[in-house]
């Protein structure tokens, strides 16, 4: 059994995560990465390198488990890419090697207009989506209910980037809002189907990335195109949802907090205290340790500082801001749960 289980307090990792997603009391703040935890070092440890770990269920599950057994996080998350369902929708994929994430060849869009959108009947049996479902089953069987297993289903906005090309999709959003909404309406079925299938396979919660980030579009865009769709996801998908949007988002967190999602996975471009002030306990926050500058380039001390900053602000689940850079040192990642424990020890009297 790994370090995650050994050092648990009164709650199991799973209980702790599920409680934090409901903003209920926890014995300590859970450590969670709702996006990829894969690194090259972990791939070596688990003998599960990319791209196999993105395409083969046993390998995918083995690598995911290291998040709990090696790093001591409270979650296991087996989906390292944002392209599993895009592959099933028909996008061309560049699978890359061990040292890089696979991606969609967005230069070769598969669709141009709403009428082109077809959710294929094999969406859930395509090898790249089925792989995720099988990996979740393997993990559920192996870990029972000791650790939270998080799945991932992409939102329609991000699927739009993949299937239409980012620039084409963004221009359409400006030229023809009606057409864009129609696209989102059709694409959302892929989000729901893949999400439901993962819950059935045993996922406790789902990450829902939908990249309407302040680095690309305005807050008003989020409200116009996505808020209501995200509310609909909460109604139709019976598991806690964790919205993921990296980049600047504090200007739209008020809208995000209105969706009823369980949590929002937020980026280090947003200050923890300011963000908590905006969402005001309507949604849990997960994050927001910086990836490129801190986890990848600095040492445990800086990691600890950012963990403390989140805990001081009352952030409900602590973890990296987005997919962890593949060359990140394990030492830095292990520091996150260590720092969380120390912070709680230091604050034990006030609890």
């Amino acid at each position, binding site marked *: 059994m790994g370090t995650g289980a050994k050092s648990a307090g009164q709650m199991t990792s799973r209980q702790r995560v599920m409680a934090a997603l409901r903003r209920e009391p926890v014995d300590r703040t859970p450590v969670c990465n709702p996006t990829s935890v894969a690194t090259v070092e972990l791939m070596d440890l688990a003998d599960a390198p990319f791209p196999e770990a993105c395409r083969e269920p046993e390998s995918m599950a083995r690598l995911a488990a290291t998040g709990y057994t090696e790093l001591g996080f409270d979650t296991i998350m087996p989906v390292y890419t944002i392209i599993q369902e895009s592959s099933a929708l028909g996008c061309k994929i*560049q699978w890359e090697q061990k040292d890089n994430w696979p991606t969609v060849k967005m*230069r070769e869009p598969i669709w141009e207009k709403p009428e082109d959108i077809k959710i294929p009947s094999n969406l859930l049996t395509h090898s790249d989506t089925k792989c995720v479902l099988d990996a979740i089953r393997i993990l559920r069987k192996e870990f029972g209910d000791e650790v939270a297993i998080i799945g991932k289903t992409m939102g329609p906005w991000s699927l739009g980037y993949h299937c239409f090309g980012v*620039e084409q999709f963004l*221009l359409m*959003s400006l030229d023809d809002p009606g057409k864009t909404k129609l696209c989102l309406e059709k694409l959302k079925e892929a989000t729901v189907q893949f999400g439901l299938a993962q819950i059935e396979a045993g996922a406790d919660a789902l990450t829902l990335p939908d990249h309407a980030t302040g680095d690309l579009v305005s807050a008003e865009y989020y409200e116009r195109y996505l808020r209501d769709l995200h509310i609909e996801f909460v109604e139709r998908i019976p598991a806690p949802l964790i919205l993921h949007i990296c980049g600047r988002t504090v200007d739209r967190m008020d809208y995000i907090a209105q969706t009823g999602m369980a949590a929002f996975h937020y980026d280090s471009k947003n200050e923890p205290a300011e963000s908590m002030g905006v969402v005001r306990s309507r949604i849990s926050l997960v994050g927001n340790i910086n990836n*490129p*500058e801190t986890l*990848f380039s600095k040492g445990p001390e800086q990691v600890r500082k950012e963990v403390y900053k989140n805990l001081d602000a009352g952030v409900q689940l602590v973890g990296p801001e987005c997919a962890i*850079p593949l060359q990140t040192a394990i030492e830095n990642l292990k520091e996150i749960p260590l720092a969380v424990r120390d912070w709680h020890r230091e604050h034990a009297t006030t609890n």
Partner: protein
Amino acid sequence: MAEITDISNDFIRQEIEEYIERPEERERNINLFARARPKMQEIAAALIDGDNDTVNRLTREALDSGIEALEVMDDGLIAGMGIVGIKFRQNFIFVPEVLACARAMKAGMAHIEPILSAAGIEPVGKVIMGTVKGDLHDIGKNLCIMMLRGSGFEVIDLGVDTAPDRFIEAVEEHDALLLGMSALLSTTMPNMGKTIEAFIDADLRDKVKIMVGGAPVTQEFADDMGADGYGKDALACVATAKKLLGVVAKTRA
């Protein structure tokens, strides 16, 4: 010294009042538009509004009425794009809006380019741009390209996932003096350094200036990998390109 009231076009006046906060940028834009003909201001306004049909029509009309292609480009299109770049940098507008402005720029340039090349007028400079190997993020790179083109540069876009060999080939094929590389991933940032080494190995490093950018790249990284320049955003990219090619400031810095 011109005053904002010297600008005849209401829309341009409002844009400057509302969105341009830095004193030196305000002054530069006021001077520029105060001396531009009303027709040029109109073209700039349509471009800032992302209205490609109007830019298309007004550019044609301006050229047909005998206004020089260079003037239409500098005082209409490039001047308009300058305001767009500032609005984007300051988060007043976002990527979709910039894409629409770039589309409008393109509509205008379609009339101007043939005239300039027939007259043998050289672009401000030639730049090869690409996202490095293993990286498919290209939104930022594309915005840089738009602003470079919007400042009179000729840009050869190698797209994404560009191997060092392809950068080398392109520099040789186009006799370019400047290369720009973009990377958004910490996993692909080292490929910038590798590309620079490939230029050294090919004995071409002295022939080309190299600038780098992308969210995780910093001036420090740029220096470490031996790049000649770094730019934090699309406007900085244009400024760096001009500096590295020794372009004398024309309409804008």
